[in-house]
């Protein structure tokens, strides 16, 4: 385990460098003159050139990359071209907002998906299974903006129970904030539940059919004990890796859901800065999301290995 951990953690800086290079190159060769974007169409050629020099855009690419990397590493992420606020505060604030939404979704997702998956797996090929499997298949295949639109039309437009926008005003109480978060969080949960529940179901079916469960049955172990002792653990271990995959979906889902519900999160910021060619913001947002993603994947991988004693601890990463 220690060897695996060391190897994985040692790989993080290299991956991060790769991510940063990719972010930098993609943003650096974006079409369009940044200086002109900042100054507007009417600006004179001299002032554009001056700004280019000020921003260091006339330097060679590798120098700019190294400067940028050094700046990023030391925490000076620059000022947003469009919002004219320090990028670091902006990105971290938005990150906090997104983490709140994502955590809420994750907390709802795990128990629901596990319960549904185990339930369907235990009742393989019964009506319970058909309903759970069918619904989770459909939900897992449907983009979150589709479910989101349906939820909005039903609960916000027709019934008027919940606000259509997730944006809250400062000073709102926790209940109000929660009411704004319910719809976007549900949207994320619906998408991921389907996928995770299906994984849990598949592994539950395998465990139930396994010789060790049959052996326990032949020893007279009761159904409830079988589930508690053998099925739950063995069926949820593979689900951990499914959850890891889901975190990527959750990340993509954040973009969509934040856009749909006008939520001031980091996904919406990524989109807005990409569309506006707000380079410092775009770079910082992409980097922060990349780091977050790597950390989460690493955690899921470690959790999986901790849970399953069979996985070769020094095997393929």
């Amino acid at each position, binding site marked *: 385990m220690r060897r695996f951990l060391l190897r994985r953690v040692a790989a993080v800086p290299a*991956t991060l460098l*790769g*991510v940063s290079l*990719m*972010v930098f190159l*993609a*943003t650096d*060769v*974006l*079409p369009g003159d940044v200086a002109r974007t900042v100054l507007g169409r009417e600006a004179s050629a001299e002032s554009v050139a001056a700004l280019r020099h000020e921003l260091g855009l006339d330097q060679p690419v590798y120098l700019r990359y190294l400067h940028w990397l050094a700046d990023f590493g030391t925490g000076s992420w620059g000022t947003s071209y469009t919002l004219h606020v320090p990028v670091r505060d902006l990105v971290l604030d938005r990150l906090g907002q997104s983490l709140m939404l994502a955590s809420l979704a994750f907390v709802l997702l795990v128990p629901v998906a596990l319960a549904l998956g185990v339930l369907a797996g235990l009742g*393989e*090929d019964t009506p319970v299974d*058909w309903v759970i499997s*069918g619904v989770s*298949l*459909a939900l*897992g*295949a*449907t*983009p*979150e*903006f*589709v*479910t989101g*639109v*349906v939820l*909005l*039309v039903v609960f916000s*437009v*027709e019934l008027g129970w919940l606000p*259509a926008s997730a944006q809250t005003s400062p000073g709102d109480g926790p209940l109000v904030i929660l009411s704004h978060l319910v719809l976007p969080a549900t949207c994320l949960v619906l998408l991921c539940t389907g996928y995770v529940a299906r994984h849990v179901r598949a592994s539950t079916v395998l465990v*139930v*059919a396994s010789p060790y469960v*049959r052996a326990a*049955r032949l020893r007279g172990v009761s159904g409830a004990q079988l589930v508690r002792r053998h099925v739950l653990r063995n069926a949820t271990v593979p689900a951990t890796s499914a959850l890891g995959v889901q975190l*990527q979906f959750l*990340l*993509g889902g954040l*973009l*969509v859901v934040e*856009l*749909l519900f006008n939520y001031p999160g980091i996904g919406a910021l*990524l*989109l807005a800065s*990409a*569309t506006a*060619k707000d380079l410092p913001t*775009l770079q910082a947002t*992409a980097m922060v*999301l*990349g780091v977050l*993603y*790597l950390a989460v*994947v690493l955690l899921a991988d470690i959790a999986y290995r901790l849970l399953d004693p069979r996985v070769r601890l020094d095997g393929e990463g």
Partner: protein
Amino acid sequence: MAVATHAPRRPGPVLVGSAAVVAAWVVCAAFWPHLVPYDPDLQAPADRFLPPGPDHWLGADHYGRDVLSRLVAGARPVLVVAPLAALVSVAAGTALGLLAGAVRGWFDGLVMRLLDAVVVFPVIIAAVLFIALLGRSAPVLVLVIAAAFVPLVTRSVRAATLVEREKPYVEAARLRGEPLWSLVVRELLPNVRGTVLVEATTRLGDAIFAAATLSFLGLGQPPGSPDWGSSVADNRLWLQLAPWTVLAPALAIGSLVVAVALLTDRLRRQLGRS
């Protein structure tokens, strides 16, 4: 109490229904000019926000365009982009996976390292960056989606190839000196066919998902396209006023992805059984 070895077949209507839905959208995509009641781009200011009724079965949007016509015409962008993206990714992934699995050695190592690097990078961020870089157009969309899927296809095909190549029938072929191309084409390819088929349908569903989502994010089809994802994004500003303009394309996407998912699921069961 005992484990059922033969799962009873699911009710047939599900299968027939899904196939019918997919077929209907394919017909729309192919022949929409002959099917639509109005020109999808025809703006009729008098009809703005007209609710569903006898003239406009599904109502009209903020330009007074017929929602039904745009819905029928909107099947084409996604049904061109998604199958192409799935095809490109499955073709490239199958070739890479088969070769990497059959050759092993440095080639395998190189391919897997490269793919690991791609996989570790969050696809959606890459898509945002690349489309911002290359601009919005159908070919870019196909390339970005296919590029994101190639590592996944390659991994499955390579895993299946590694299982097959250790089997004695492949070793027997190596012992009698079959050349590499013969090993790959004669021995391995027919036996990873099931994996390729499942990958193809899975990636088709995922590609529809991805194409719709990217369009919704404003990263897909060029502006003004009747594409479903773009329509949802454009019309959501008038959600409170004219919910049908948002609901119709959203449900269209939903029906297509769910139908494809059900078909994929059935195919996977069928292959898993044999």
